[in-house]
């Protein structure tokens, strides 16, 4: 193999595939990155066997071939090279990589590229095209609600479902549930219902960045793998097998109290309360009081810790229905507020020991379609 590639292109490509490199590898080769010529380009690939990422970098290929070297080493090395043309050269065996750039010359011991795991290519199966901004936003509003422990594997994933011009993403960790819709330009050719590892979507959202290029998703006919493709990048993830809980019944349709408040103000007060909550049991208490006689309603946000002290903040709020109170885990409350952006949020609830339902709303209090977040409260002594 003999190729020439611009340092900045190589660095960017390595950074992209680096997200899939195994950190605690059981087999050494998956800590590596595969470099391979393909149709006049340099193909970079990495995998931790759950997630694989492939990136194509523009290159001048003088001699086709392949090699595989430790990802961390080549990443660190290339990141420090000057912005110039990098020449990569490997013998036919692929067992050594020589890198020349400006007046820097180095060799890296490489492994046999034939041993690198094969990364699936998904050409058939049902496909969906996404606007990258809409996809990224939906992922960010949902993935954090997925479970982080493996006790129920399906909950570590995000449930994707579509049977029309809309795709619904849902994640739940047993204590909270996030559901977001994405409008599609075209309905998929067949109904979709799969569970994608939350980690894969998190990486996807990060890699999409502020790209404007559409993202295509393909699910293989065996429903075992999903591929996301955009620009010159592909990500393949193993789907999680199992049945996702039927979550629609967990979103209450009724409420006794509905409060609307400015998201940024709520976020600020929740952040302050969290400072006190973190040294106690992590509880933030909300008390909602309807307005009377032309006075605005009020939201009181408070937290206390035995060792530290207490805090109470008040916000003007529109409160419909009964005066009410509810206590939340401070992290769960902050997580949902953080993904709502700015604007206004409605909190709907029926009792201090039943779901709190968060919905972004417009100026008139009308829910923005396409997102709902349910958080179970903490059962506390008031």
């Amino acid at each position, binding site marked *: 193999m003999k190729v020439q590639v611009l340092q900045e292109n190589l660095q960017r490509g390595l950074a992209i595939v680096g997200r899939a490199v195994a950190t605690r590898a059981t087999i050494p080769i998956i800590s590596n990155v595969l470099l391979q010529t393909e149709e006049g380009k340099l193909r970079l690939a990495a995998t931790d066997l759950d997630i694989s990422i492939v990136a194509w970098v523009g290159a001048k290929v003088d001699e086709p071939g392949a090699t595989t070297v430790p990802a961390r080493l080549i990443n660190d090395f290339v990141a420090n090279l000057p912005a110039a043309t990098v020449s990569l050269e490997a013998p036919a065996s692929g067992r050594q990589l020589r890198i020349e750039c400006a007046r820097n010359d180095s060799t890296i011991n490489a492994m046999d590229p034939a041993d690198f795991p094969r990364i699936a290519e998904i050409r058939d199966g049902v496909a969906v095209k996404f606007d990258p901004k809409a996809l990224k936003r939906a992922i960010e509003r949902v993935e954090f609600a997925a479970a982080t422990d493996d006790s129920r594997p399906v909950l570590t994933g995000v449930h994707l479902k579509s049977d029309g011009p809309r795709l619904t993403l849902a994640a*739940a960790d*047993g*204590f*909270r*549930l996030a559901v977001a819709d994405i409008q599609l330009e075209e309905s998929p050719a067949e109904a979709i219902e799969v569970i994608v590892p939350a980690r894969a979507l998190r990486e996807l959202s990060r890699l999409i960045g502020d790209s404007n290029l559409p993202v295509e998703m393909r699910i293989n006919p065996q429903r075992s793998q999903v591929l996301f493709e955009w620009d010159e990048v592909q990500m393949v993830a193993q789907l999680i097998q199992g049945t996702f809980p039927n979550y629609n*019944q*967990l979103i209450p349709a009724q409420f006794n109290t509905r409060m609307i408040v400015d998201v940024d103000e709520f976020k600020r007060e929740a952040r302050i309360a969290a400072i006190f909550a973190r040294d*106690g*049991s992590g*509880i933030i208490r909300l008390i909602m009081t309807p307005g009377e006689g032309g006075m605005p309603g009020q939201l009181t946000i408070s937290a*206390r*810790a*035995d*060792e530290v002290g207490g805090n109470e903040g008040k916000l003007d709020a529109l409160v419909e229905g009964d005066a009410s109170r509810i*206590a939340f*885990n401070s992290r769960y409350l902050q997580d949902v507020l953080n993904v709502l952006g700015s604007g206004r949020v409605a909190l709907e609830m029926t009792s201090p*020991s*039943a*779901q709190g339902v968060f919905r972004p709303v417009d100026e008139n209090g009308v829910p923005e379609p396409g997102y709902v977040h*349910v958080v*179970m*409260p*903490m*059962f*506390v*002594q008031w």
Partner: protein
Amino acid sequence: MVDTATVLHVDLDAFFVAMELLRRPELRGRPVIVGYPGPRGVVSTASYEARRFGVRSAMPMARARELCPGAVILPPDFSWYAPASRAFHAILRSYSPAVEPVSVDEAYIDVAGSERLFGTPAEIGAAIRERIRAEIGITASVGIAVNRLVAKVASDAAKPDGLLRVPPGEEAAFLAPRPVRDLPGVGRRTADVLAGLGIATIGELAAVPESVLEAKFGRHGADLRRRALGIAPGGVASALPGRRSISREHTFDRDERSAERLRAVLLSQAERVADDLARQQRAARTVVLKLRFPPFETITRSATPGRQLLFADELYDTAAGLFEAAWEEHGRRPVRLIGLGAAGLTERARQLALGETPAPGALHDAVLALRERYGDAVIRRAAELPGPPADAP
């Protein structure tokens, strides 16, 4: 030279009575008793005037009436006393973080390190007394010594409305002339046994050879003699609110080598600790296991599982895991003492799960209610019961 007598015992004088007199000044100078006047009522607090007639705390009310027919008897009104009690403890905490509350009207405070800010321990004691008088309107007595034991005896000796400092090194001399009953930990039964030996004062107790006391009182004999000399652990358990811990310990009469028996003790301790947590409306973040191998090798191990621990099962599971590892590590040697503690106490709360309708800890609440009413033994786990005899089928 640094003054090592930094432990203060601060005790409000006839607290409940003093509080009643605040709002009924016309009763000043008369014998006043606070306590429920009913047939099964007992004396909570008696004024010094009533004490002159022989009325004492915990005495049946009927007996108190006999001794002091002219006494004014008032039922306790805790909602009136509670703010004053809180103010009292707050005053103490403003002088040192090491405050160990004993009850509503009594606490230890260690002022080591506070001298630069507030003066000598005696000056701090005087300031505390003055602030209690000015801010609450009642009087307190203060004892100052190198340890809690002597400080407590000193404050009793200073009562009412006094301050007494026992200089370091003079503990034994201070205690010597006092009757043995003045020594904390000496109850009527011990005093009776001592009287049988012709011992009436603490000084006489201190002079008895340890072997004699051990013959009479077993392991506690040596301890009794040390206490009579004024020797006791020094410090005040730093009791910053929330940094408290709740624990139970058990010392075996014979070193225990059965894993099953050790686990059973641990389970029973978990039950008691969980009950205490429930009573205080607290949850634990950390479980501490304590093991002592003879003669004096003591180890502690702790675990913080990252969630609230409320119930005996949760405490036990964590403690049992610690026990297995620690015991294995020490070659499964016989155990002299085993203890289980809950630390990192926080507000009791439970994260509800999606789809859950809470009936939180209904069983635990019911068990706790039974124990509150009838004592710990009313309901027990089968594992806590003594096993069947070895030859049982």
